[in-house]
């Protein structure tokens, strides 16, 4: 249980590594190769390939019914794939051969925790340790209770524990046999909102301390971004994008990813030489991520997040280029929706002190300190770059 195993996956955010997770440093602990799962006529997972490196925490993120929980169950061996292969440490476990869950060396934290209600917290944690002798088992359970901060609660039944404590027992139970891979199915969805944020941090640090490779599943993009080394966005049984949290947020590969990870607006624009003409003025092509020269003279959509654009009352000598049509007060910030003269509608996030009146002309300008993502007009995804 050391923390040295954790790969420095967060460091390569701007390098050529992005989009090529397979050959990044760290041995792949888990590989999915063209995995497909069908129930009758319905294809739940379609030709999914993915690999997870030693020591990283990868999150499968997607909306309800996108197949992410099924993917997790396939990895655990609780389901059999209809096609493709799953390998753990290079050893095929589903596909050409099938290993049942009990021999896979994969731990699972279930959504509803699945603590055995007839056993105490200690007995739950010791459940997977029945090949150890009594003394070693007691020591191991003690270590884990300490790891999850429940030393005084070992003798309690699951029903006597709070939601957060139950989750910690579930985590300790799945870590006890030192699995090669830990799977977490919507681990925070059964907790109160307040507890959720706290437990995220805590679970992440426990996993880090245990040095375990983990795959988690969630539909909550904030949760995915805050705990993961990498995020795999799934939609309708397919993988949309695998990247660091920054990568999927700032450089989404598809319009689906763009809008699923937070608010996204699109500025319609036309590439003219070294600028893109849009409703908020010309944007230099150097500020657009990977816009290839062959798109010169074509229509594209530039993605902007609410914090990338600012709406102000026009200065005396300035022309307004839009009108505030909606205003949502969120406490610390205010989200405005502005209809540009060009017809696009964009969302702008402002500090609550910066008031802009409703139904008045405003001047909208770009205020982003990073490259913007873009999509060819009428296409759902982005063209693959040469270095992909």
């Amino acid at each position, binding site marked *: 249980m050391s923390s040295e195993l954790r790969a420095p996956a967060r460091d390569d955010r701007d390098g050529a590594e992005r989009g090529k997770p397979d050959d990044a440093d760290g041995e792949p602990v888990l590989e999915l190769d063209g995995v497909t799962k069908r129930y009758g006529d319905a294809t739940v997972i379609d030709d999914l390939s993915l690999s997870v490196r030693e020591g990283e925490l990868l999150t499968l993120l997607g909306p309800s019914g996108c197949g992410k929980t099924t993917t997790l169950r396939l990895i655990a061996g609780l*389901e059999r794939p209809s096609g493709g292969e799953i390998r753990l440490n290079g050893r095929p476990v589903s596909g050409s051969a099938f290993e049942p869950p009990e021999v896979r060396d994969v731990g699972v934290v279930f959504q509803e925790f699945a603590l055995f209600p007839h056993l105490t917290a200690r007995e739950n944690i010791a459940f997977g340790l029945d090949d150890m002798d009594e003394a070693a088992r007691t020591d191991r359970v003690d270590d884990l209770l300490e790891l999850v901060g429940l030393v005084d609660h070992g003798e309690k039944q699951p029903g006597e524990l709070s939601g957060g404590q139950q989750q910690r027992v579930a985590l300790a139970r799945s870590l006890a046999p030192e699995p090669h891979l830990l799977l977490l199915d919507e681990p925070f969805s059964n907790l109160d909102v307040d507890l959720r944020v706290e437990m995220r941090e805590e679970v992440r640090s426990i996993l880090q301390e245990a040095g375990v490779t983990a795959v988690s599943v969630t539909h909550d993009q904030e949760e995915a971004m805050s705990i993961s080394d990498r995020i795999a966005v799934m939609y309708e049984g397919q993988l949309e994008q695998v990247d660091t949290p920054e990568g999927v947020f700032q450089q989404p590969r598809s319009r689906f990813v763009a809008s699923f990870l937070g608010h996204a607006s699109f500025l319609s624009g036309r590439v003219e030489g070294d600028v893109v003409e849009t409703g908020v003025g010309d944007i230099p092509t150097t500020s657009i991520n990977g816009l290839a020269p062959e798109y010169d003279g074509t229509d594209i959509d530039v993605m902007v997040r609410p914090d990338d654009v600012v709406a102000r009352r026009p200065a005396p000598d300035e022309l307004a280029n839009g009108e505030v049509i909606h205003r949502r007060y969120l406490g610390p910030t205010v989200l405005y929706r502005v209809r540009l003269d060009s017809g696009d509608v964009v969302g702008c996030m402002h500090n609550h002190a910066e008031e802009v009146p409703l139904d008045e002309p405003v001047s909208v300008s770009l205020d982003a300190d990073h490259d913007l993502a873009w999509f060819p007009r009428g296409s759902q995804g982005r063209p693959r770059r040469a270095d992909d």
Partner: protein
Amino acid sequence: MATTDLTAVLDRDEDGALPVGLTLLSGAIAAAVLSPLVWVAANALEADGAVSLITAPTTVEVFINSGLLVAGVTLGSLVLGVPTAYLTVRTDLPFKRGFSVLLAMPLVIPSYIGAFAFVSAFGPRGTLQGLLEPVGIETLPSIYGLSGTVLVLTLYTYPYVFLTTRAALKSMDTTLVDAARTLGHGRREAFRKVTVPQIRPAVAAGALLVALYALSDFGTPSIMRYNVFTSVIYSVYGDILGGGRDLAAVLSLQLVVVTSIILAIESRVRGSGVTAESPNTRTTPLRLGRWRWVAVAACLAVVVAALAVPLAVLTSWLAGAGQPTTGQLGFELSYVTNSVGVAAAAALVSALAALPLAYFAARHDSRLASLFERASYVGYAVPGVVMGLALVYFGATYGGDLYRNGLILLPLLVFAYVVRFLPQAVGSSRTSVEQVSGRLPEAARTLGRSPIGAFRDVTLPLVAPGVAAGAALVFLTTMKELPATLMLRPAGFSTLVTRVWTAYESGYVGQAALPAFVLLFVSALSMLLILRMEGYDVE
């Protein structure tokens, strides 16, 4: 979220296939349970002159008698059960809690003991006549026949309607009635237009239980000397290797057909009742005003007739035992040990048979699984007399020496109990399996347990209480079972039930006193268990 993902996969095994071992085992149990019925049908169809037997005057009379009995008892139970339920739930009836308990209590008295007591009290040369003789009343209206049978059976079966109606009234959202009244309906109109449609399924379910009970009951019509299917089948079965066999088989088949018709009618009448998720029952109770004491008197009359009469009669037997009219107590401990022995065997076998069926049905959402589970319920609708008859046939035909020396009879008797009462064990086992999340055995698998290990260490300990409760119910119900016990018991094997019956047949009522009290006690226990399992609420 993820629920959509999960529901898609919950009901399937790893690869969507059904486990072979479990499927075969459940199928075998279902087939065994159905076999007596198949046996009866085959015999009836083979009977010489089956058609002429069906149209014979006796058969037609028995058919009409049974029909009248079922109709009379069902109607009577509705008349007693629905108003008493309404009074104890929705009005300001005095002593509501007491009546809620007392009005359900007649279920505790096995109807044959009730019938025995009524005949003893109100029959010719009975207690009442003895009391009235000095006044010059020499004859009473006869307790025997249709009216007496209807009266006694109604008194001991109306609680089914009472209980189901109460449950529906309690779970019904009373704001619906309030809404109807704010929309300009009077109380009576609101009752007819809102309450009645809401409680109708529950009333129909209670009436179904009553009708099935009335049709299949053997003891009461026999004691009240009223010829119905069950009593005639029993009276001719002794001659099974002679001419009685065909008649018995034909009547049995008819009885089973009539049972199915009742089941079909009930599913028609029931319709779809909707129960509110969290009922709002804060409405003010109906004020009875000066009718309060009339209502109390009516409820009290029912309680006295159904409870006080048999208790008084039994007590007088016990007190009078030893006198020439009542006979010796003649009680032996072996009656109790025999009763407990067969009942324990039936409970154990039922639990063992129920677990695979319940597990299969609860965990696998397949047609086959629910078919097997349903099959286990068929035995419930097969009257004990038919079951006894089928197994006696079976033993006599295939048992050979084992039948002649009686060795096969006890296993057959236990089998009859299991087939009849298995649904009680399956029901509660299935509920308890359903309450164990499918994630728990999966968690055990990911922690290194084999499928069998996961079942043994996780599922089994969690479902054990439910299975045990089901087995306990089978145990108590078996203790009271009359017809199959009479037909299948080996010579010289007496239980509490057969003692009561022998005392009735011989006229030495004193010998019935103690076994009858023990049976009442057992009955009370089983009733408490059922009410507890169903969360009966006297408030």
